[in-house]
């Protein structure tokens, strides 16, 4: 690790796509300060895209603004992403995997995001805490294969 380079980023965003773009850009410039290999960098970006857009699109039953918290923590071994939202309970770890054998014309247009994140990250852990969904996702920095 380089001296003076922060190892943790906290961003709070509201549940709209404009703010999500701002948050992802902030995450990008934070990640750019650390030498991440292409694969973990892709996995982190994909996790941010898929999890945040899922929360924005599906977590809320009302039309009110909500606060989503994101924390990115780097260690020598992995990148940890923590998402916290006050939407309806949703455990992406337990979400059913899409049926990839379905022919093209019968494929539902969607349902892939969580599956891709699950496949490309090392560990995902979900808990419901004080009316909030808290999701931790670990992306391994070094290894190229899922454990």
């Amino acid at each position: 690790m380089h001296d003076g380079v922060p190892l943790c980023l906290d961003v709070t965003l509201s549940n709209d796509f404009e703010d999500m773009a701002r948050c992802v850009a902030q995450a990008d410039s934070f990640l750019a300060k650390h030498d991440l290999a292409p694969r973990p960098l892709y996995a982190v970006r994909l996790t941010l895209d898929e999890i945040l857009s899922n929360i924005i699109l599906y977590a809320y039953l009302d039309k009110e603004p909500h606060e989503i918290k994101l924390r990115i923590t780097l260690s020598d071994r992995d990148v940890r992403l923590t998402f916290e939202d006050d939407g309806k309970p949703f455990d992406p770890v337990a979400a059913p995997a899409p049926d990839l054998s379905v022919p093209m014309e019968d494929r539902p247009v969607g349902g892939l995001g969580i599956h891709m994140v699950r496949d490309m990250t090392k560990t995902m852990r979900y808990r419901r805490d004080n009316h909030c969904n808290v999701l931790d996702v670990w992306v391994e920095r070094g290894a190229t294969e899922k454990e």
Partner: protein
Amino acid sequence: MEFESQKQGNSTVIKVTGRMDAVTAPEFEEKSGEIMEAGNTDFIVDFGSLEYISSAGLRSVLSVAKKLKAKQGGIRFCNLDGMVQEVFSVSGFSSMFPIFDTLEDALAEG
């Protein structure tokens, strides 16, 4: 995202550069729709310069593929590289669509 299309024989070769995510994927669908409306329904998508694709990008690919199929057309892909190739494999898209190593191979199939 940059979107270039070029007619080659009976096929339309579409080259996508940059990122296909929730922000840019609608543009892919829109421009593909224009090409279909002009009567071209044999697509070769060259993803050699695609850096990143999320599930939103895959959704728009699937949506275009379904429309082409409804018009008795088709879509095939070439030059998938690195992480984009992995995403195609993880999502099952590799087994759903014809994929070629090079543009020449994809054209030869047409």
